[in-house]
């Protein structure tokens, strides 16, 4: 029997472990399938991590090390090269590694911190051939940053997610020619600062409302045909343009890795692809918590660490047997606001609710209502899907309501 088992030793898992430790939990075990802690940060050797948390610009590995060091100092146990294969609703974890074979652990509480994976080409149905030279941006990042190899020299990037933007700059610095970043939507899914620093500073064209409509080349990629799309997302025939290239990087979205979550019978939010959680990041199964990219995709690791702290503190409270509450206030959204985390509130206290919008809106007002009562409004000059937003819901607002509605009002 182990008090707290954390699945995934990325920034979310480490931060959750440390938070639980600080609240007095000692019997903690982190299970990580890779050969070191740090998660995806190990390959993010660019700057830009930790501005919020540490008020300095760190690289991914530096940021991760700040946490890993404390894991060592506090002697929190972890197993590397250990893959969790299964979790049951009763918190029995089955895992495997080379030395112990298949083994099970009964946990009192579990924190899910498995991160996310990238959406592959197949999910996009790009017509054409199936040659080599098509990589997800994260795979290319791994080749370049961890292995020291270049995946190609003439590059087109599809999707303007942050990893794609970062890779546009990285490949350029390594001597490759990045011909264009094509984005299907009329706006970028990446952070404004990344568009500035990774594309504009290097004169890499960002082609909004553009997509790759055909892939050419039998063995190795030889080129792509791109085209502008109409407002329905359909390519416009007359705008087709052939770009010779040997590499296509895909940065077309991240998908939370929730196979284990589903096995445990935990309720999933169809919009985030992650578990449906309450303000403590507790899932529909009491004692199982989730945080980081496995819950919903974050732009900044600082937010991941913060969310993981919430989960770690809540797991400690759960282990101490804090009484269960009877409240249940669910949060609904209007579609312009795509989702919120948490999705449900079970305790009346001040709560930060994070959310993402579904398009770029200017002069918008975030409006939180309950029935006919407007509880809160917040004006925003601009909101976009690439940047996570938040509002604080005060304890007083939660009295005598059983539902919250998040809406975005836009003047047209």
């Amino acid at each position, binding site marked *: 029997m182990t008090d707290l088992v954390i699945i995934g030793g990325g920034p979310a898992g480490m931060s959750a472990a440390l938070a639980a430790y600080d609240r007095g939990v000692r019997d903690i075990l982190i299970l990580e399938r890779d050969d070191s802690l740090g998660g995806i940060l190990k390959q993010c050797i660019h700057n830009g991590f930790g501005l919020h948390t540490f008020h300095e610009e760190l690289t991914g590995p530096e940021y991760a090390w700040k946490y890993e060091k404390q894991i060592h100092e506090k002697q929190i146990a972890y197993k590397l090269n250990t893959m969790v294969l299964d979790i049951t609703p009763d918190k029995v974890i089955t895992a*495997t590694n080379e030395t112990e074979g298949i083994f099970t652990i009964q946990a009192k509480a579990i924190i899910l911190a498995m991160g996310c994976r990238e959406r*592959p080409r197949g999910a996009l149905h790009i*017509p*054409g051939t199936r040659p080599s030279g098509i990589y997800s941006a994260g795979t290319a990042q*791994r080749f370049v940053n961890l292995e020291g*190899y270049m995946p190609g020299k003439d590059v087109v990037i599809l999707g303007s997610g942050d990893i794609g933007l970062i890779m546009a700059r990285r490949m350029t610095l390594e001597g490759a020619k990045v011909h264009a970043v094509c984005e299907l939507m009329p706006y970028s899914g990446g952070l404004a600062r990344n568009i500035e620093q990774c594309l504009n500073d290097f004169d890499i064209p960002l082609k909004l409302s553009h997509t790759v409509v055909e892939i050419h080349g039998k063995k190795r990629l030889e080129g792509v045909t791109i085209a502008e799309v109409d407002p329905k997302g359909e390519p416009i025939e007359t705008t087709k343009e052939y770009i010779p290239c040997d590499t296509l990087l895909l940065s077309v979205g991240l998908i939370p890795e929730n196979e284990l979550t589903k096995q445990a019978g935990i309720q999933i939010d169809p919009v985030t692809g992650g578990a449906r959680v309450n303000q403590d990041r507790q899932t529909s199964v009491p004692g199982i918590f989730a945080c980081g990219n496995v819950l919903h995709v974050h732009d900044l690791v600082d937010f991941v660490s913060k969310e993981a702290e919430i989960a770690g503190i809540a797991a400690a409270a759960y282990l101490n047997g804090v009484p269960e509450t009877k409240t249940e206030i669910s949060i609904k959204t209007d579609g312009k606001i795509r989702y919120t985390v948490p999705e449900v509130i079970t305790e009346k206290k001040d709560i930060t609710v994070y959310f993402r919008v579904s398009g770029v809106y200017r002069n918008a007002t975030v409006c939180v209502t309950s029935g006919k009562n407007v509880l809160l409004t917040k004006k925003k000059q601009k909101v976009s899907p690439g940047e996570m937003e938040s509002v604080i819901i005060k304890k007083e607002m939660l009295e005598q309501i059983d539902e919250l509605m998040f809406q975005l009002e836009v003047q047209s």
Partner: protein
Amino acid sequence: MYDVAVIGAGVVGAMTARELAKYHLRICILERENDVSMGASRANSGIVHAGFDAKPGSLKAKLNVQGAAMMEQVARELGVSYKNNGSLVIGYGDEDKQTLHELLKRGQANGVPKLTLLEGEELRRREPNLSSEVTCALYAPTAGIICPYTLTLAAVGNAMDNGAELKTNFEVHKIISHDGYYEIVSGTETVLAKVVINAAGAYADTVAAMAGEPFFTVKPRRGEYILLDKECGNTVSHTIFKTPTKMGKGILVSPTVDGNLLLGPTSVDMEDKENTQTTKDGLKKVLAEAENMVSGINVRQSIRSFCGLRAVGSTGDFIITSKRRGLIHAGGIESPGLSASPAIAAYIVGLLKEQGYELTVNPQFNPNRPAMHRFKEASRTEKNRMIRENPSYGKIVCRCESVTEGEILEAIRMNPKPGDLDGVKRRTRAQMGRCQGGFCTPYIMKLLAKELQLPYEQIAKSGGESWLLSGTTKEGN
């Protein structure tokens, strides 16, 4: 001098080579690609058809029914998963019901066992997710599903384990007939063999012409597919076909033997035998038709699209025949060629015997290929035994499909040996899951480089010019 040279390592060449390995013969398989199963046998529906489609009396009908009956045992011997899931040809209304009746009768004439027509409640009970407009279906309990390239790989491997040789990157350009033997030329390389079996798939006509027998042609017909995540694998349990019309068979919706959901294929006549591109219209059509047949298909769960070329022969039937002693053609092997393949192999060996070749049985022939370890499917005790004997079975490389380092090493060392990433993929399923190699590609490249003693950056995706890395970064590594 070989006794037999088999041209083409598709499922037909593979099964034939294995059948021949049961006799004392020196066999060589000649394949133009860098691996086996690179033609139609790689990209098809993987259905073991029951056998009611083909015209009674045709070779297609006969060999399909025979082959389907043999498949379960062949698969067991070769350690290949096969599932007898049954098929349903669904109809919408009375006209279709009439057609299904005719199919039923045709099937019975072909000797297909246990065909029945289902309607209403009983049909829904068997297959609850059929779209609500479906009214009737022809049920064929003997139909099954199999992974076509796994079968081909295993058959070639088993033939090799029993002494057959495989030459890849050997594209036959010329065949010169001599007295009692043939000279088979590829560039500067020559192979001599007493018997030539032409199993060159889409190029069977070209190969026949090389040997001076241009009596048939083969035309490619494209079929595009969409594969969905394993989470959708239970959408249907049977293979679902539409009632055929004058326009053709239409697409199917089927679980695959590995648990994914397969939608497709389209059917478009082509000129280019190399063009396996997917098209926007094709993929659209697949989705639209599939959604018409079965409810609850989740497009967002698709992980891959692909395309295969049917080899449509000029006679409408399989062309398995010989005009000259020692030269046998297997052309126009379109669907149900996979289903029929064990029977095609036996039929070809029969033709050789008819031509007076004396085949002596090799008592040492071992029909069994050691099944590859499958960590994912093993029981807990088995898993622990595997890991104890070899810890690399405890190290998961492909997370999506739970493929271990041990399995990948095993595949790299086993006949026929892979030389690239796609080769490992087809043998182990590593890179075939929902992330499509996003995480494990670099690891597998390392394992291949080490085992094949090649520099890391020389590992390719699929032979030839399909390189993966253009060089080192500025700092190198």
